């Protein structure tokens, strides 16, 4: 049976993310009540795990790091079909950059125990990096393939995957245990089902703190992060805008005139 860990991140709903601003004074995020959802790419990672479970035998652990409310997205993973949910949550984990996040997640996976596959989305939608997946792999000392778009489950421990590449794709032979970061083209995530929600009600998630992971507070969170956010400046790309007024009809006419004048039509 395959043992799969899926790393998921709670992100502000990308559809409303434009409401989020940074407080220039405190450099903290002003989230403005934007709801938190599973990072869209991580849904594809979970779907890949669910697909492997449907076609063979697999046990799926959803793993996240974040404040306690992030437990909701782990519960959502249970409702979608994950067998077990774990949230790494501790004040000490706060302010982590990609490196410290990857280190903490890797410690969480070590505590989960033996695994065959770790799956992550290839990036998070909230503007962060693509580094967490590959860095988790380094900390776990397993091979990684990033931007996986097709998985061909191999016989035994040797698998073949296709990964995005400039103007095409790369075929990669990889030995399990391994970590894949996945793209949207891998699959189409299923939506929550009513029976899934009912079943998940009986399941609970596990919360692990700094003490549970037995790591030094110096190695996690802001303290364990090599990078810092130093300043917040402004970008000089302002243009002086001419707003087109009137009825929709008049605005469309004016715009057609502008586009024609610029040589875009006609």
């Amino acid at each position, binding site marked *: 049976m395959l043992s799969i860990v899926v790393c998921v991140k709670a992100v502000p709903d990308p559809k409303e993310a434009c409401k989020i601003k940074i407080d220039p004074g405190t450099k903290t995020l002003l989230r403005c009540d934007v709801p938190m959802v599973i990072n869209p790419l991580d849904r594809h990672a979970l779907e890949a795990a669910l697909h492997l479970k449907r076609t063979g035998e697999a046990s799926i652990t959803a793993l996240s790091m974040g404040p306690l409310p992030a437990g909701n997205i782990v519960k959502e993973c249970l409702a979608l079909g994950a067998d077990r949910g774990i949230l790494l949550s501790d004040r000490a984990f706060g302010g982590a950059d990609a490196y410290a996040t990857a280190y903490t997640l890797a410690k969480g996976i070590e505590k989960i125990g033996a695994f065959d596959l770790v799956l992550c989305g290839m990036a998070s939608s909230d503007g962060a990096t693509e580094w967490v997946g590959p860095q988790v792999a380094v900390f776990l000392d397993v091979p990684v393939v990033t931007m996986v778009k097709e998985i061909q489950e191999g016989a035994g421990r040797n698998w073949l995957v296709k990964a995005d590449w400039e103007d*095409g794709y790369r075929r990669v032979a990889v030995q399990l245990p391994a970590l894949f970061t996945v793209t*949207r083209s891998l699959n189409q995530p299923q939506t929550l089902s009513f029976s899934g929600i009912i079943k998940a009600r009986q399941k609970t998630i596990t919360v692990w703190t700094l003490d549970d992971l037995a790591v030094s507070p110096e190695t996690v969170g802001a303290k364990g992060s090599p990078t810092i956010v*130093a300043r917040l400046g402004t970008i000089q*790309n302002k243009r002086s805008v001419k707003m087109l007024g009137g009825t929709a009809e008049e*605005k469309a006419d004016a715009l057609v005139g502008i586009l024609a004048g*610029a040589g875009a039509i*006609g």
Partner: protein
Amino acid sequence: MIGEINNCRPYSASLQLVGKARALADRLNVPVEVVLLGDRLDEPAASFIAAGADRVFIGESPAMANYQPEAYAEVIVNLVRARQPQILLVGSTFMGRELAPMVAARLQTGLTAHCIDLVLDENHVLDQQIPAYGGLMSILCPEKRPQMATVASGVFPNPEPDHSRRGEIERVAIPADLPGRVRTVDIVKESDVVQSLSSAPVIVAGGAGAGDDAGWRQVKALAGALNASLGCTRPAVDAGWAELETMIGQSGKMVSPRIYIGVGLSGELQHMVGIKGAHIMVAINNDPKAPVFDQVDYGVVDDCRTFLPLLIEKIKTYTEQSCTEIRRGRS
């Protein structure tokens, strides 16, 4: 920096980074060194020197002609440990985006993703700038070395090659047994849709404001009516309307159209920094307070689901009329 080649020629992202590295190195009074792995590398190595490198370390092996993750990481980590550079720059190519985080984790240092500028601060620390939440965020790696950053193609200009420049080419030893847990079997080329967007003269880009699948079809139809290339923002990719390859911005494509039309997008800097030097920029959005209106020349406040069909109709009418006029002129 880590150099990369494609069909025996350096990637533009790599050469552009040499140009930037040269400027930074001159201020720090240090050399620019490039590590280049693959097979038959003398010629590309010379291009890196002409672009501004002082020394190119080449690691050649037929087995490494294609990118091999663990072997490449191993050679680069060993070389960085030996050379102790202050800064290590990597192009945001598919290889760079996989290799850089592996190398950074093994060197226990920081790595900033998809920078749009790199400058030295008053303490000669690398100020790595990325757009975030309506501003420009400066990321520093104050203690760990090297300071690592990835940069996409098109962020920095191509350096003017100087073929009279002198530089050293040094060969690095390749481990006899390459790590075998993960292996690139081959790289298959399909199409280059990406190029067409990068060089398109007219671009229509759509965002979350398209609303739904039907709304997105309208955005597409507008691009069709204008014979324009279709780009998008991340929410449009997340919604499943558009392919990731057509995403414009910091972690997507850099474009430089003559005319840019943003439809149903708010003007997030992550997207807007991807558009360079456009002659005319237009935005259509139903929110008059959307930041995009500070960054364009012409603005229309309207719901794109109702406005686009009207606009497309008028564009078609205009095009037909001018065709008729041309035909009349001929007859």
